[in-house]
């Protein structure tokens, strides 16, 4: 077994090109559990925790967007400037594991693992995030929606590293809510991210842990836009209730060790309804 501790992106990409079967290791909060439980025995590891290029973010005010490096830990994302500019991302980040996990975990890890329960992913879906990928001789940008293709499946090629995401700074309410078996240290049973975009008069809703991928509720979004003036952001109790009911219909939950499909669907109706009521200006 080999472990390459890369100190810059070029070295990491070269190491990955040399051993494309290598596992990329960022915070370790997924891979080390697999190793500790003997579910996975790595042949080659390319460790990214010392790659500074992946641990930076930049606010591009003129374009109204933020680039977030794939290795920026959740403990950074849960605070300002994200709390102000991307409140849903900050809220989602704060629900990830414990302070110890948030010091290690990152959006790059969420994207690399692509678990439907990854707390950062509904936010990336609702914000129509662009995922940036690099290899030694190529770079490409993919919409998050096209990146995640199934449970722990994505379109990253073996020699590519996820360098970061670009998300827009929207004008309007944003919120992230999740249901788990307790308040701290919990993996989502069901989660939802709602983002109002007053510029396009859109309410965007994305669901986590209730389908093989993150689910964008396009039908529910369109229904709402036809019912109310989103730019005014006044949502009645009846509209919110129907919004929740429709969102639950778009969920595709299953029974598993964490919950049942029936409970998850109910949870989504409540989460979506409450998020829309919170969006009332």
């Amino acid at each position, binding site marked *: 077994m080999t472990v390459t501790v890369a100190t810059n992106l070029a070295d990491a990409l070269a190491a990955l090109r040399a051993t494309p079967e290598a596992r990329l290791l960022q915070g370790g909060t997924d891979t*080390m559990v697999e190793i500790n*439980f003997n579910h996975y*025995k790595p042949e080659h*590891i390319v460790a990214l925790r010392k790659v500074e290029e992946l641990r930076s973010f930049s606010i591009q005010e003129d374009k109204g967007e933020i680039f977030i490096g794939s290795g920026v*830990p959740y403990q950074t994302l849960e605070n300002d400037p994200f709390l102000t500019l991307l409140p849903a991302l900050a809220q989602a980040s704060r629900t990830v594991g414990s*302070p*110890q996990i948030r010091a290690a975990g990152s959006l790059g890890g969420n994207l690399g693992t692509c678990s439907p329960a990854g707390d950062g992913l509904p936010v990336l879906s609702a914000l129509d995030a662009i995922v940036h990928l690099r290899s030694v001789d190529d770079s490409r940008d993919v919409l998050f929606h096209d990146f995640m293709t199934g449970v722990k499946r994505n379109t990253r090629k073996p020699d590519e590293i996820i360098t970061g995401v670009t998300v827009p700074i929207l004008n309007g309410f944003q919120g992230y809510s999740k249901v788990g078996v307790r308040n701290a240290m919990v993996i989502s049973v069901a989660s939802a991210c709602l983002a109002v975009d007053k510029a396009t008069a859109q309410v965007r809703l994305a669901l986590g842990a209730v389908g093989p991928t993150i689910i964008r509720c396009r039908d529910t979004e369109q229904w709402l836009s036809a019912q109310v003036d989103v730019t005014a952001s006044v949502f009645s109790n009846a509209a919110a209730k129907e919004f929740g009911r429709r969102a639950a219909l778009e969920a595709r939950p299953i029974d598993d060790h964490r919950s049942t499909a029936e409970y998850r669907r109910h949870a989504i109706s409540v989460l979506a309804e409450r998020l829309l009521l919170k969006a009332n200006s």
Partner: protein
Amino acid sequence: MNAENLIYTLNVNGTDREVKDSWVGESLLYVLRERLDLPGSKGACEQGECGSCTVLLDDDAVCSCLVMAATAVDSTITTVEGLISDTVMGETARTISDVQAAFVTEGAVQCGFCTPGLIVAVHHLLDKNPSPSDIEVKEAISGNICRCTGYGRIFAAVNAVIESRGKIQK
């Protein structure tokens, strides 16, 4: 041990420690306990849920069971053993830290298994934020699970440290 057996070097509690004759995929927790004779960090869940293996890695409190030890080269690692002061007011001594002393005097230790992780987490919190609110203390130790105390005496110990450090500053 000859030089060929050297795999990597970790800086633990201010000392460079060579890790030899080991599988390179081992967790930092395993290496600390089984290779470097530092059994203070405890192993329980092995999946980042319980916090009993918490150490400081550079400026962060992390679960050492989730760190691949070989990737922690060129980092500074502090375990609960490293919180012991070797000198007090210039005199050579082996004394426990104020956080450890407060856990003892407030009775915040029952079975003691979670204690090393909690001590590291509380040190990390109070070094960054000397006067945290109750909710900030709760959030800071939300990743450290204690099944004995019900946390009441742990909060009392944290408050005792906050108070004593505040007095020293004044």
